[in-house]
């Protein structure tokens, strides 16, 4: 058991090395594109595209789509974050494949059922999706990328996200520990 643990922990990158590498990726994004990393923006592009395709009349009336179209030119799928997120899926898959971590499974604490884990995952996703739109970006786009360019907004969002996580941790401890 101990050996398995040792073996497994070795497979992950040293977190400080991982952090420096992630910082260099973020620096490249700023140097090349003049913007940081992001994730929720790609989901937004898909929703805007879906709305304009499936229900064009509703899209015309939607303040959300209008707001998006005013700030983004052209096809919402031909968007920097959409291409970047496609890369994330490829990069994550490559790392998982090279470390032997590709496996279809529901990851959860042995104290809870898969069903409970999936219900909470869905609820968490809904909240995060909603919050990322209200907060104009998620942990990547608002908090991490914002901090790197010293954006006050980035620091405020980062503190709100992690502060809330810590404040609520006690009530959801059964799911994790």
């Amino acid at each position: 058991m101990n050996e398995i643990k040792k073996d497994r922990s070795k497979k992950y990158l040293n977190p400080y090395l991982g952090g420096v590498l992630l910082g260099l990726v973020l620096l490249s994004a700023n140097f090349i594109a003049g913007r940081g990393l992001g994730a929720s923006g790609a989901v937004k592009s898909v929703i805007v595209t879906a709305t304009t395709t499936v229900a064009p009349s509703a899209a015309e009336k939607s303040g959300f789509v209008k707001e998006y179209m005013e700030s983004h030119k052209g096809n919402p799928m031909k968007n920097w974050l959409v291409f970047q997120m496609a890369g994330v899926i490829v990069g994550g898959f490559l790392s998982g494949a090279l470390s032997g971590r590709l496996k279809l499974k529901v990851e959860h604490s042995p104290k809870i059922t898969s069903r409970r884990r999936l219900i909470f995952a869905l609820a968490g996703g809904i909240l995060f999706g909603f919050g990322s739109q209200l907060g104009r970006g998620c942990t990547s786009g608002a908090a991490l990328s914002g901090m790197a360019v010293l954006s006050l907004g980035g620091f405020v969002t980062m503190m709100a996200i992690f502060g809330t996580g810590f404040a609520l941790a006690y009530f959801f401890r059964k799911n994790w520990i």
Partner: protein
Amino acid sequence: MGPLAVNEIISENTNLFFAFLIGIGFGYVLEASGFSSSRKLAGVFYGYDMVVLKVFFTAAITAMTGLLLFSLFGWIDLSLVYINPLYVTSAIVGGIIMGGGFILGGYCPGTSFCGASIGKIDAMVFIAGLFIGVALFAAGFNWFEGLYMAAFRGDPKISTALKMSDGFFALLLILAALAMFWVAEIVEKKFPREEY
């Protein structure tokens, strides 16, 4: 010179190609650091695994220092780099809702795609939730617009708001990060846990 795309040194399509490459790097590093596991990510809130704090703050200070040095060397014009605007109310309320999503779901949007890429079904369900959440915001946008647009403050830098130079604030942030890393190492020893 930089940012290359803004200065039209590279075309829009080349920029999109770089976006894909940068995404590969992003996803690779996240997965290799263990961010594809919700139980590792949630560890930061309970002290048994502080990898989120270590990677997140190391990345932030690395990129921040890199940008300041690039600017000093004249390699990048920081005034052309996107700085997130500050709408005080929505930044705080949105952040609080996201924090709730984090502790319930165990992922954030970027890490959920990373988890899904190696087969985590809980991450795929989280992503389904993301789409529902964004769609709900879109559908109710007219109701939330007031909150969304409230208390706009432009795109201020934290260093300006604190009346410091960028470099001095950067130094303070690096020192704060080092202090947090030190605490994180102690916390992990204090709340060890079995294989998960």
